[in-house]
């Protein structure tokens, strides 16, 4: 895996983290946490459309959407009492937004381990983010298969 394979917006997030000292990385994660995009109105009263990321220690729900232009959007909810998990969801929601199906599927599975948080955050939590990415890709494969069917 080389960084050139990473879509520009994900690469930028990674560079932003790696440029910082450990304690400032947590601060940046908090900023992401606070910026987790709100759900579009069409999803707000539809918990049934969301998939729970059971690997996360707190209740996190995601739904993946492919729009008319075949661009990918990831929507996620996570409680305010779980800012770390919210931060991870926000990184993926913002980092994947608008990419093509192939670009998202090509994101390395170990992306969460490469953004410089392995020392600041416990391994259990990073696994939660890895699971979030894995479930996103699985949902996307299902969506993509439905589109070509």
């Amino acid at each position, binding site marked *: 895996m080389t960084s050139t394979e990473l879509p520009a917006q994900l690469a930028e997030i990674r560079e932003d983290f790696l440029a910082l000292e450990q304690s400032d990385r*947590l*601060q940046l994660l908090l900023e992401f946490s606070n910026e987790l995009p709100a759900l579009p109105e069409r999803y707000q009263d539809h918990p049934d459309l969301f998939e729970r990321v*059971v690997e996360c*220690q707190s209740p996190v729900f995601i739904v993946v959407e492919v729009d008319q232009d075949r661009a990918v959007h990831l929507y996620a909810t996570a409680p305010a009492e*779980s*800012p*770390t998990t919210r931060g991870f969801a926000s990184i993926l929601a913002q980092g994947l937004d608008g990419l093509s199906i192939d670009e998202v599927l090509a994101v390395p599975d170990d992306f969460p381990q490469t953004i410089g948080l392995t020392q*600041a955050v416990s391994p*259990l939590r990073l*696994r939660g983010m890895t699971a979030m990415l894995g479930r996103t890709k699985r949902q996307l494969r299902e969506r993509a298969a439905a589109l070509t069917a």
Partner: protein
Amino acid sequence: MTVETDPSARFAEFAHPERLVSTDWLQEHLGAPGLVVVESDEDVLLYETGHIPGAVKIDWHTDLNDPVQRDYIDGAAFAALVGRKGIGRDSTVVIYGDKSNWWAAYALWVFTLFGHTDVRLLDGGRQKWLAEGREVTTDRESAEPAAYPVVERNDAPIRAFKEDVLGHFGHPLIDVRSPEEYSGQRTTAPAYPEEGALRAGHIPSAVSVPWARAAADDATFRSRAELDAIYRDEVGLTGDEPVIAYCRIGERSSHTWFVLQHLLGIENVQNYDGSWTEWGSAVRVPIVQGTEAGTAPAPR
């Protein structure tokens, strides 16, 4: 300088009432000379989202663990850490956190390894403070550094190692994990990722008492009578024998350790922090699966 203890009637029934303070007490004493408030959470970003005014943060993951060996930091590192947080050897330290003080109790236990005398928990922790609508701030941590002496850890009284557990058979062992982890269906708590142990089950003869049974819905500790009913009547602890508690990495069992030692006054309680991530991967140690405790092997 030691700050007066909380005289609440609710705490008076506990063996060591000086180990707890109420939210009212803390509100009144914020800023008192000699008092340092510490937040220690499972979610390492919670402090930054808002904390009790003046509180400092201690991160269980990055601050208290040795970064290389699986062990706690040594005396020099502890002195540097807490000195930076404005804690002196005579400070009254009040710790609070999320998840019914699960991690706060862990931090308190580590402070105790270093023999810090006056360390207390905020009953109800972060949840109760917020539920009561009390003030929080997102101010960056600021503390006047203090000189803390280098004191070497004294593990023996309250910390058990694997060999100690093998020699302890025949005396009470308490498994504080979830029923699913105890019976061997999982190696980690429900909703947590599977991680860290090669075998599932429990240490033979260990009784299952999930840690959270000691916590009420508002995150405070249950009353003396309720705790006695669980640990003395149901489990049969008499206080005459040494007790070892364990969980997955020793954090949930710190909560139980606090309950047994400080609230019920049972002497000689040790926390086995190697816990299931060590036992469940160790070679040639006995394991029982299912809901029965199983019989204790001969001590070795």
